[in-house]
């Protein structure tokens, strides 16, 4: 490339991490790290309480239930304390609830009855406490609604996870099958090439078409290695890489015996070479068994011989 002053860090990232050097990460929004959905309040005109609901909806179930109980007890304490200093408080029957231990029990009981929207009516709030009681009623209902919907959505999330996994396995199968078809196609082109009675340009056309499909499959494999949350099973991946190596071998032989090129073909070959080159045993974000690494190295080796 013309660069004259290039130095090389021999150990690379592995050595750096081993020496506990500082590592920087880039958060990529394309691959979500947690399966939990985040409900984002999108429109800025939503009311403040609607935003609070959004925040509540992101909490885990246990935290939500704990929060609900906490609110009830907090309100109960407020009712009880209100009965001490102020003239108003709760009323049970005809008597005002006294600010003693018995009163505390009654206050908390009233708090529960209000939050669960039961409302027996044996204990009633007086004066400004009524506003508080109504607020507690609303809050209790909303939080309870959140809790119920979380329970329901748990099952849904399990189902979605299952669908993702099935789709992923289908994709893996499809790529394997396509690689086999591409291999057959390369062999067929080779056959046509040997029969010198082939029409000029026919071989080139078929080659171009196969190249394009091959490049597409390589892109899918690249995504499978780098961009998925789900781990492909090692033997499925190994058979996939083996098939890929076969295709590349067939391609190299074909290119050697078939000197015709075109601009489109060269562009495709370059793409294929680059993508295959990036299937690097050390660069993929997970560590694989040595057998897979050997396949990846082989594929990289062949990638150099293509372009």
């Amino acid at each position, binding site marked *: *490339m*013309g*660069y*004259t*002053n*290039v*130095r*090389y*860090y*021999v*150990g*690379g*990232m*592995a*050595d*750096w*991490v081993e*020496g506990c*050097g*500082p*590592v*920087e*990460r*880039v*958060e*990529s929004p394309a691959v979500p790290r947690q399966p939990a959905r985040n409900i984002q309040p999108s429109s800025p005109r939503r009311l403040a309480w609607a935003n609070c609901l959004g925040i509540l909806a992101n909490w885990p179930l246990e935290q939500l239930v704990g929060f609900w109980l906490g609110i009830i007890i907090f309100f109960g304490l407020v009712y009880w304390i209100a009965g001490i200093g102020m003239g108003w408080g709760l009323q049970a029957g005809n008597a005002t609830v006294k600010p003693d231990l018995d009163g505390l029990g009654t206050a908390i009981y009233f708090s529960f009855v209000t939050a669960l929207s039961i409302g027996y009516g044996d204990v009633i709030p007086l004066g400004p406490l009524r506003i508080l009681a109504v607020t507690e009623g609303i809050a209790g209902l909303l939080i309870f609604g959140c809790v119920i919907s979380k329970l329901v959505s748990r099952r849904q999330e399990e189902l979605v996870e299952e669908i993702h996994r099935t789709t992923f396995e289908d994709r893996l199968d499809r790529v394997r099958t396509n690689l086999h078809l591409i291999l057959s196609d390369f062999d067929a082109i080779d056959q046509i090439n040997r029969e010198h009675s082939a029409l000029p340009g026919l071989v080139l056309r078929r080659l171009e078409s196969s190249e394009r499909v091959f490049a597409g499959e390589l892109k899918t494999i690249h995504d499978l290695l*780098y*961009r998925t949350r789900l781990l492909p099973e090692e033997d499925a991946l190994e058979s996939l890489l083996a098939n890929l190596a076969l295709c590349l071998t067939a391609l190299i032989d074909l290119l050697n015996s078939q000197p015709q090129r075109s601009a489109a073909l060269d562009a495709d070959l370059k793409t294929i*070479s*680059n*993508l295959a*080159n*990036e299937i*690097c045993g*050390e*660069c*993929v*974000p997970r560590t694989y068994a040595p057998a897979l690494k050997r396949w990846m190295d082989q594929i*990289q080796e062949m*990638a*150099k011989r293509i*372009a």
Partner: protein
Amino acid sequence: MAKVQAKETVTSGQPISRDEILSRLQDPAFMLVNVMPKETFDAGHIPHSINLPVAEIEKKARQVLPLLDREITVYCMGST
């Protein structure tokens, strides 16, 4: 092809040690180039290093590294 060229440049260049990199991390004239694919770069890289995947060397090298005689340090995942 690009990788072969890069390797030729690489094996004829001088090695650099981890300690030297550590000491020169804050140096603004120190050019650290990561040649791994973008996703691997995102997952973790040495601070102040730039990403230039091997596949894009030909296209983007001139933009990212305009000066030919400036000192650049290249690294990958391991001893590739």
